[in-house]
């Protein structure tokens, strides 16, 4: 399978703390994406990082990519209760337009 795997499966933190989740994948990629899914909703695209990039920022989000280790991390700084959701990484396996999703990290931010 080309699916990525997120770690940890579940994470619970206090509001204001930082949350870090990791993604490992198996094959070479062109792009890696992170998505958020609130309960009962569709996935929302957060950030895309290309294989030639090492780090990318978007607001309180910081994504890193280490292609030598086939891994990525998503850092959410100063977390808020509204960040409670599941987070998924998706990789394209150099196939271009098809992305393969992991099983997700469930993040709970306690007010």
């Amino acid at each position, binding site marked *: 399978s080309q699916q990525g795997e997120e770690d940890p499966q579940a994470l619970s933190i206090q509001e204001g703390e930082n949350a870090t989740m990791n993604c490992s994948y198996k094959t070479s990629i062109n792009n890696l994406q992170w998505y958020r899914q609130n309960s009962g909703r569709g*996935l*929302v*695209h957060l950030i*895309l990082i290309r294989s030639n990039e090492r780090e990318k920022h978007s607001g309180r989000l910081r994504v890193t990519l280490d292609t030598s280790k086939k891994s990525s991390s998503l850092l959410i700084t100063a977390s808020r209760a509204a960040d409670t959701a599941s987070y998924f990484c998706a990789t394209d396996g150099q196939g*271009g*337009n*098809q*992305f*393969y999703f992991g*099983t997700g990290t469930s993040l709970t931010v306690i007010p």
Partner: protein
Amino acid sequence: DAGITQSPRHKVTETGTPVTLRCHQTENHRYMYWYRQDPGHGLRLIHYSYGVKDTDKGEVSDGYSVSRSKTEDFLLTLESATSSQTSVYFCAISAPAATYGYTFGSGTRLTVV
């Protein structure tokens, strides 16, 4: 979700009956996808389309077929529904190379009894 709608939102059907789920987009995107989401499996690609009448299989395509006769519509058909097809189905759209990521619909919760 803006630009993409799925119908129905919920459906209960009996084993052995055909079921069609519809995805409609107003973004004029070339690429459309059907995924299913199950606990412990994440999202798995069923079928995708890269243009009108151009479709291809994903990793879990058995028991499913798709059609795309217009840019804006992508239909997923379960030929003869089975209980193992009980799932939440998501449609997604993207520009070429998914430069800005996928946009997902709100999902269809299908229960096969």
